[in-house]
């Protein structure tokens, strides 16, 4: 019995390692085909369909390394000039700014793209926006109409014990506060953060979806979240999820006073990109109407191309007025935002 087990296990381990070795050999053939290496912090099944479409149209194979943005950043940093990465895709301008700050990206030359550079981009176009997302307020249906119209209203003491929001370590909150620092100045932004913290219903926990569900369950009346999390629930196959959205509604803050905080999922061109031509072709594809539709159909984000398809029920979000500050502001104010969150005790 034991002998059989040992030999069985040893044999299968050996076989596995052999298969492993033959796997490695695949890479030696890759020099001949055109490839583009994408480090992606996005993990949608629809991305695969998107890349397959691109491969079918151009013959360029897309190889991905999917991980969290910070893991990708650390990996790229360790790889340095040897990094095989051509492109980095990540959600939030603040994240892309971190790659830029580390010198891991290079400017995307406008004249090498098929169309125009999007306006939503880094100052030096070392990363550009692909799709838009809005940081909105979700409230329970029994919160009176017009009781909350702006981000500033969340600081009102009448909402004591009513606000659910995720941790301040999350980049979405860092970028929002970075934006507010730009809009109202650091002192007022700190007062705002302290007042909002004073209105917390509970210590920050979970992600944006958890906050929306908590509002629907009655644990709080107000949540600060990215718009698409609400829309995904609204489009879910699960009846429970859809009930969450029928018990709540979205408010697009600051419609007449500076606009709702907008952010992007963006793409950056790696500084050491070995396949720049192929990388630029993929960027072209992602900015095309077809690519835009494939990019956002499952995520619920807003395409930059007004012609492109998006998830059902997104009209209000697509038409909402948004802020106009350059996206680079979020990155530049990131460190200050973090310090403010730490000082006011917003975990």
């Amino acid at each position, binding site marked *: *019995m034991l002998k059989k*087990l040992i030999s069985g296990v040893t044999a299968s*381990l050996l076989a596995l390692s052999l298969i492993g070795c033959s796997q490695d050999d695949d890479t030696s053939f890759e020099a001949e085909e055109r490839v583009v290496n994408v480090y992606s912090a996005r993990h949608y*099944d629809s991305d*695969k369909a998107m890349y397959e479409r691109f491969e079918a149209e151009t013959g360029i194979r897309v190889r991905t390394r999917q991980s969290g943005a910070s893991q990708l950043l650390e990996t790229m940093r*360790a790889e340095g000039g040897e990094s095989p990465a051509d492109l980095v895709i990540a959600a939030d301008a603040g994240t892309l700014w971190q790659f830029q700050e580390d010198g891991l990206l290079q400017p995307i030359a406008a004249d090498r793209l098929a169309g125009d550079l999007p306006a939503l981009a880094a100052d030096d176009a070392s990363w550009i926006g692909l799709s838009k997302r809005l940081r909105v307020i979700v409230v329970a249906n029994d919160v009176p109409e017009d009781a909350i119209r702006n981000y500033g209203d969340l600081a009102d003491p009448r909402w004591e014990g009513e606000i659910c929001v995720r941790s301040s*370590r999350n980049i979405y909150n860092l970028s929002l506060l970075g934006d507010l620092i730009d809009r109202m100045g650091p002192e007022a932004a700190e007062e705002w953060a302290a007042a909002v913290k004073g209105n917390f219903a509970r210590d920050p926990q979970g992600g944006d979806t*958890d906050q929306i569900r*908590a509002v629907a369950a*009655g644990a709080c009346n107000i949540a600060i979240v990215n718009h698409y999390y609400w829309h995904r629930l609204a489009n879910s196959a699960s009846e429970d999820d859809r009930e969450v959205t029928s018990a709540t509604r979205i408010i697009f803050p600051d419609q007449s006073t500076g606009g709702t905080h907008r952010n992007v999922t963006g793409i950056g061109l790696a500084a050491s990109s070995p396949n720049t031509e192929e990388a630029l072709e993929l960027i072209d594809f992602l900015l095309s109407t077809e690519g835009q539709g494939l990019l956002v159909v499952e995520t619920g984000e807003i395409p930059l191309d007004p012609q492109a398809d998006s998830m059902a029920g997104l009209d209000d979000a697509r038409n909402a007025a948004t802020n106009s500050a350059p996206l680079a502001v979020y990155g530049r104010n990131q460190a200050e935002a973090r310090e403010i969150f730490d000082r006011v005790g917003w975990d």
Partner: protein
Amino acid sequence: MSEVTGTAASAEDRSSLRLLTHHWRNMPALAAMLVLVLPLMAVVLAALNGGGDGWRNVVETKLFGSTLTTLGLLALSAAMMTLTAVPAAWLVTQYRFPGRGLFEWALILPLAAPAYVLAFAYKDLLNVAGPVQSAVRDLTGLGARDYWFPDIASLPGAAFVLSAALFPYVYLGARSSFVNQSVCTLDAARLLGAGSKRRFLDVALPAARPAIAAGAALALMEVAADYGATSHLGVESLSVALIVNWEGYNDPGPAARLSLVLLTLVFGLFYLERLLRGRAGVQATSSRWQQVKRAPLSRWPALGAMLLCGTLVLLGFILPMARLVWIAVETQIVPDDFTSATRNSLLLAGMGTAACAILAIVTGFAMRRGGQLGRASRFAVSSGYAVPGSVLVLGAFAIIAAAQHVGLIDGRTVVVSLVGLVWVYASRFTAVGANAVDAALARAPASFGHAARSLGAGPVKRIARVELPIALSGLITGTLIMFVEILKELPATLLLQPFDWETLAVRAYNYASDERLASATLPSLLITAVGLVPVIILSRALSLSRPGRH
């Protein structure tokens, strides 16, 4: 065999080991230790450079709280695991009650499920919007803020989830000790009039203490190093704090220092346990094995035994898995193609396990031999186990960069990433196998070696024909567990995975971090399903094993 000859035989056996290992066997052990500790040594070097603002900020804001949190997690989960798993092991080895045979192996099922998967499931089940609290509100008509409910996203909540995932380690340690304990000792205790309670507390438990402590040590090192489950539940232990800080300030230096704090803490605790145990040891004096005669339990104690074992299996496996299946069905998730992720997971786990197994044999022998080399080996295997995988990757990155610098390797190919990853797995998980080898060698009656010697077997032959087979028998258990652990490993794989090499664990984590639990259910269930195969082989081997027959 009398006590005197028993001890003499084992001492003599050890000296024969020492004799031949002096010359050639130190080399493999030293080489293995070097492989094991090199990533960590690179981290220590990084820690020396890790001063500056980032570190000052950590010391001022995080260090104290996170250290307390880790201590709290360790204390709570140690209590939860030992108070449930040890009695369960005693019950299934010593008594007869309905379902005993089933529980004996079902109690290790939680090993197949990663702790972070349990955390996904429990957070979904128990959060304010989850099914349990919704049912409470529906039944009572109360609002969400009108009642108290234990918060799963809390330190006790995290300790509960980690205990539910990791108690099988303690169970396995306790069980193997109770099964292998001489029946004669227990019979003698019985003849001397000791009741079942006294036989457990005064005879079996002290003898089992080293094995229980070894099992608990493995589980607690996992607790200390855990990132996935603990961070999902919003608890900032040291291992979570170090990664949060690393990400937040883009500086791995403070993370390296925090990992040293973590390491010191964990080793401090084990040293304390050993100190408290003192020199007290229990020498097995009889090698006369008998079929364990399990005493039947009367109705109420039997019910209690079933309840305890059943609850453990339910909480550690059935309930969280059922919830994930339910979510997958409810949201009608369209299964993506997971064949390549499954293949990658299996390949990586296979290669990692092979590396671990070789290192475990070498270090396991060294550990049993004792002495300086043994202590050093014990330290080498344990140090990697107590550190989060992401920290070891930090060391691997440094080593790869150095190798590149001196021109040893050319560029970052798939092979470099794979070798790096397998190295990190080896450094992280060899402890499991090495401990199993050590335990197997320790359990083998000294008379085996003695007999071989009197039959004229030379030292090499004795190693090849007597000790190696015994060590391999221990390694089987270790290998299966290491395979499952590597299958579940997350932080290192996230950092070092080569292109198009996504594993199931990475898929599950990526989905969950995108707040798409429904999509994460399938890869989570798949990891568990794949992990079940070795776990079931392990349980079969367990239920077949009898004292004296490994």
